Structure formats: structure tokens, C-alpha cells
């Protein structure tokens, strides 16, 4: 009897190790998630409205003018405020538009958002305070907390606040701008849909000096039952080349191409060798 009790005690200690208990507390977020609208000709920040001016963002007059100038420039074939062609990181909050799938991994102290081609986003849930010596980044620093909304002992939502940015950053590729002071604060409330656990909501509120009020959008992501990953290097995929002020394309066979009809070739007067 004594021997059996000892065995039982030992097993209870093993079973009570933190990993198992901790795993059970979290909602079923660990999966690959996709944006259902990505790759369908644009990725508007507010998914209920068309991209560009149709977003009707609450911009200050100064930033509305910057936005309209960007849209005009893009209509002429330029990049406007969108710097994707230079392979600059999108940063927050744009990275949460999930232009490509993202995987969520939960550990007690950190929740990881692992995207296909951008730096991994770490959301610290260990109760830490904002670090004073952290370098500003495009992704910012994220601190989160898990919430048990219905008091059933299981977390339902992850609340995240992200600060400490550098720029330039935009909301979407139309060049919808964030303020140049980079004092953005992004608040997120992430939870599974009540009716469909394969739908994840991210209510994202952006507070920024380019905006007249906090701007909240509800982005939804779909769980991917058969995850698929692709190695996607911005520079490899990037076919834009800037030589001085002139932009060119690089063809699939690695040769320089004009971006517009009648565009002159670059000046090669520094080359003494014959052309290949």
C-alpha cells in the first residue's frame, strides 16, 4: 500500500509539471492563419471598404493631402508612399494584413507570430514593463496579456499593445500614411469567432498623430488545415531597379527592361568594355 501511494505521488508530481497545465489554458490559436482576401488585387486596411481613398480614413488634413498625393503618384505608375519595391519592412500595423500566411505559437511568456517572409513578431506576456533602451523598429515592441473573458479558467483573448516604432510605415500599399513622428500606438484584441473556431479576429485600433481619432478595424484570418510555406525573398521577387532617379525592371532572364514605353536605356558611359 505504501509502495502504491509512493508511485501515485511520483506520478502526480510528473503529471503536474507546468508544461501540460499551461498548454491547456490557452485558446486554440496555434495554427497557420491566412487572410482570405489576400492576393485578390489589393489588401485594404479596413477590409469592409475599397483600398485607397475609399477607405475614408480619419486622417488630419495634412496627412489626407499626403495620402492623396500618394494615390495620384501611383496612378501615374509611381510608388507613392508605398515602399514595398525597396524591400523595406511593412512593420506594424500593416504586417497584420497577412499578405502571406502567419503561424501562431504560444508559450507562457511569449506568443510568436511567425510570418512567411518578415521578422517573427514576439508578443511578451511575462508582465514586463516597456524597456527604456529598446531600439525603435518597424515592428515595434509588443506587450500582451491573456484574458479569461467568461471566467471558465481558460483564456479567450489576447490583448496586445505595440509601441516604439520607426518609419516610414503605411497601413496599406496605396500609401495610406502613418505620422512621421512614429509615435503610433497599436492595440489589438485577438480572439476566436464564437461560431466558427476556424476564424480568428484581430480588432486593431491604431492611435497615431496622422489620425483625428483612434481607428479600429476588425481583420479576420482563416485557419489553414493544410499549412503551406514558401520561401519568399523580397529581393529575389523584386524586379525593380533604381539607377539614379530612373526606375527599371529586371526581366525573368536577368536583363534590364524599360518600365514605360520609350524609356531610354541607362547611360553606360562609365563602361569601357563592349556590351554583352
Amino acid at each position, binding site marked *: *500500500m505504501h509502495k*502504491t*501511494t509512493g*508511485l*501515485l505521488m511520483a*506520478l502526480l508530481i*510528473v*503529471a503536474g*509539471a507546468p*508544461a*501540460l497545465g499551461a*498548454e491547456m489554458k490557452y485558446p486554440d490559436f*496555434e495554427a497557420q492563419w491566412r487572410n482570405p482576401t489576400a492576393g485578390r488585387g489589393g489588401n485594404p486596411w479596413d477590409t469592409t471598404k475599397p483600398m485607397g481613398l475609399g477607405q475614408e480614413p480619419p486622417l488630419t488634413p495634412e496627412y489626407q493631402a499626403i495620402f492623396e498625393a500618394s494615390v495620384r503618384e501611383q496612378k501615374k505608375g509611381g510608388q507613392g508612399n508605398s515602399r514595398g519595391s525597396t*524591400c*523595406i*519592412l511593412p512593420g506594424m500595423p500593416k504586417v497584420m494584413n497577412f499578405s502571406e500566411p502567419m503561424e501562431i505559437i504560444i508559450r507562457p511568456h511569449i506568443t*510568436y507570430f*511567425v510570418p*512567411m*517572409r518578415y*521578422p*517573427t513578431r*514576439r508578443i511578451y506576456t511575462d508582465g514586463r514593463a516597456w524597456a527604456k533602451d529598446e*531600439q525603435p*523598429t*518597424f*515592428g515595434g515592441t509588443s506587450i500582451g496579456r491573456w484574458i479569461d473573458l467568461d471566467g471558465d479558467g481558460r483564456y479567450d483573448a489576447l490583448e496586445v499593445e505595440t509601441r516604439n516604432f520607426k518609419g516610414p510605415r503605411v497601413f496599406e500599399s496605396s500609401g495610406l500614411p502613418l505620422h512621421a513622428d512614429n509615435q503610433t500606438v497599436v492595440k489589438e484584441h485577438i480572439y476566436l469567432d464564437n461560431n466558427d473556431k476556424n476564424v480568428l479576429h484581430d480588432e486593431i485600433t491604431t492611435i497615431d498623430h496622422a489620425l483625428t481619432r483612434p481607428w479600429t478595424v476588425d481583420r479576420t484570418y482563416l485557419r489553414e488545415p493544410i499549412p503551406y*510555406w*514558401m*520561401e519568399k*525573398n*523580397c*529581393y*529575389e521577387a523584386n524586379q525593380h*531597379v533604381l*539607377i*539614379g*532617379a530612373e526606375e527599371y525592371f*529586371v*526581366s525573368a532572364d*536577368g*536583363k*534590364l*527592361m*524599360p518600365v514605360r514605353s*520609350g*524609356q*531610354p*536605356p*541607362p*547611360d*553606360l*558611359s*562609365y*563602361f*569601357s*568594355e*563592349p*556590351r*554583352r
Partner: protein
Amino acid sequence: MPARSALTAIALAVAMLALAPAIAQTYPDFESQWRSGGDGDAWDPAKPAGLAQQAPLTAEYQAIFEASLKDQAAGRRGNNYRSSCVLDGMPRLMSLTAPMEILIQPGLTFFIFQEAFARRIHTDGKPMPDSEPPSFQGYSTGRWIDAHGDGRYDVFEIETRNFKGPRAMDSTGLPLHKDNETVVRERLYLDKTNTDRLHNEITTIDHAFTRPWTVTKTYVRERNPRWREYNCQIAPGAVFIGLDEYRLSPDGKLKPLYEGQPPPDLGYFKQR
């Protein structure tokens, strides 16, 4: 006796619970930030970089390697394409010139790099999908090994295939074969006397080599991890057209990187 049976039943139930896929109880203590235990990125950390690596290259690839070293000695990049933001790929990635974090899930282990895309090692026993496109990192399948039979995994074995290139073993441009039929086998385990050290025995099988080449890299656990946001950006003044590198002159014109460099092909332009 009935009381004893009940206790045994409870014990069995608890034992089953304990054997559930609880990460901390099954897998070794790999989940951490790891940094390279050495300096530089010479592929064999026990030898100096360059020719002193005594890489088992075929005569053809030894000549390619020596040409890369000469090119670099002249201030160019040789076979090292990192300056044009071409991905390092495998196996070079595992030199850990910047920190890496390991996260273990039952069917998938993640190697999350500060300066590269996350590496996914599939441990669900499934073969590589036929539709998998080749990549610089390749496709990795792994298996956990309980070397001591104590119910806890000790070793992680990985095989990686399905590559594209160009890839080099290190920054000297030590080449891999352009057929990209490389196979990389890794065996990771914690040091027996210091579990803050992780060893990775890496064997590279490649047609540029006369035999499989095995080196052991050692990574050091970082208990207070800090991360830097990394974004590969081409150096100011550098212009890449495909894999060819040029320079931008102060007057905004394209100029050769080195004396005698031919200009880019302008065959797509009508006005010349």
C-alpha cells in the same frame, strides 16, 4: 484489495496523463535563444577560413573556390552573394552568425532566425509533398531520438533536401554544386556536461565534394535574449541587375564594380 485496485487505476490514469504530449516532459531543453559559440563563419569552426578549411572539393570546384578567394582578395564578392540579399540557405544558415531560437511542437520544430526566414523541420513522419518548390533552405524532415531509452528525447536528427542556389558554405564563397542536389544531415544534442551548449554535427553530401563533409558547430544558450529587427538592404550605391553587381556614380549613372566589367545587356531597350 479493492482500494489497492482503485489506487492502481488512478495511478495508470495519471501515468497516461503524464505521457500526453507535454513538451517539457518529452523533449530536451532546446527551447531557447542560441548563439554561435565561435567567431566568424568559417564552415569548419576548427579550422581557419579559406583554403585552410581543406574542403574535400572536386578539382573543378576547388578551382571555383580558389577563383572566389582571388575575386574577394581583389575587393569583389566572389561566390558570396549575401551583399545582393540572396539568402544564405542551408547549410550555411546553421553557422548562426546571428541568434536563433528553437520552438518545439509535436509535429513541427521551428528554428527562428534573427536574420533569416524561419526554418520548419517536419517531424510528423510525412514525406515531402511532390509539389514542394526548391528553396535555399530546402525541405527538412526530422526525428527525435531517445538515445538513452529513458523516455525523454536526447537527439534531434534532420535531413534536408530540395534546394535551389547559388549557395556557398561560408562567406569566402566555398561552393556547393550548381546541380543543387545537396543533402544535409544534422544531429543536434545538448552537451553532456554543460546543457547550455548545443552541438550540431552537420554532414553535407554534395557533388562538389569528393566525400561527405562533417563538421560540428556548437551553439551557446542565451538566457537573457535580445532581438534585433533585421532587414537585408542592399548597400547604398550598389546596384544589382540579376546577380550582377554594379555601382552608382555620384552623377547617378551606372558604373562598373571592377575594371573590365562588361555593361548590362540592354537588348530590351528600343532606343540605343
